[in-house]
């Protein structure tokens, strides 16, 4: 939340001299494409303001990444392939949606596991129906 941005306010001096790319702050004409671009942007983590997705970051780098996502979606590329392309460049860091791997399966399995353990503990507080 707020705290996330505290790290991130940049002194006004160090900013690019050229305006951001066209699609950094402009939507795609096709609402369906814009929606899928937006959905992808919300899952990509900004490289500069590390507490934010590129969809809600003021950082210039985030603007450039938004432009990249929109341009590729516009060209008809699938969101999953754009995500993979970015992961190939920045590692798993760049996605807020951790890809399933040897390292992340305990994370994804945790909800099921917790439900199971919780259910087992809760069972002990019930008594069998007598009638």
């Amino acid at each position, binding site marked *: 939340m707020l705290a996330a941005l505290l790290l991130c306010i940049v002194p006004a*001096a*160090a*900013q*690019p*001299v*050229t305006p*951001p*790319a066209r699609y950094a702050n402009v939507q795609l004409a096709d609402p369906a494409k814009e929606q899928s671009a937006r959905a992808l942007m919300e899952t990509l983590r900004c*490289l*500069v303001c*590390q507490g934010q997705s590129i969809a809600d970051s003021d950082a*210039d*780098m985030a603007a*450039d*990444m938004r*432009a*990249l996502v929109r341009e590729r979606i516009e060209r008809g590329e699938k969101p999953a392939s754009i995500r993979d392309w*970015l*992961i*190939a*460049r*920045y*590692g798993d*860091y*760049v996605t807020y949606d951790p890809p399933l791997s040897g390292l992340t399966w305990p994370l994804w399995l945790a909800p099921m596991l917790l439900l199971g353990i919780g259910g087992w503990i809760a069972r002990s507080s019930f008594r069998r129906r007598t009638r």
Partner: protein
Amino acid sequence: MKRFALWAPLAIFALLFAVVASGLFRPAEKVVRSAMVGKPIPDFALPAMVPGKPGLTSASLRQGQPRLLNVFASWCIPCIAEAPQLMRLKAMGIPIDAIAIRDTAPAIAGFLRRNGDPYARIGSDRASQVQLALGSSGVPETFVVDGRGIVVKQIIGDIRPENIAEIAQAVKDAR
């Protein structure tokens, strides 16, 4: 069994404690490293930035000789700080190419006039698209690229005087 289970919360907390303590005493890197290290440089062609100096293509990074690829900008303050180190590296005979991020010709020309010009080529990356393709997350950053166009090392942030030997060694190793 039952009595044993009562100690489970403490055990879980001990695990939690270990995780948190490891995070505290071995702090994770705050910078995002490029996953392109060890991989071939992606294909790109950037136009020239300033008159009299060629632009940059990925082909020019595969000419048999290791090179430095410096990602910089005239509006970036640490880039001024690292300029003398780049000049030293150039004086050691290491070829340096550059990608200028979101910049204009007059601003770059002024920057080179003030801080020296170590670059053989400068490509203009108006929308940071090549920067993103390289897995670079800011300016300045420097990549060591071997003669076959494979990225062998990434230096994040400004090059400091104490980094020079290490970079020169990396270039030597890439031969």
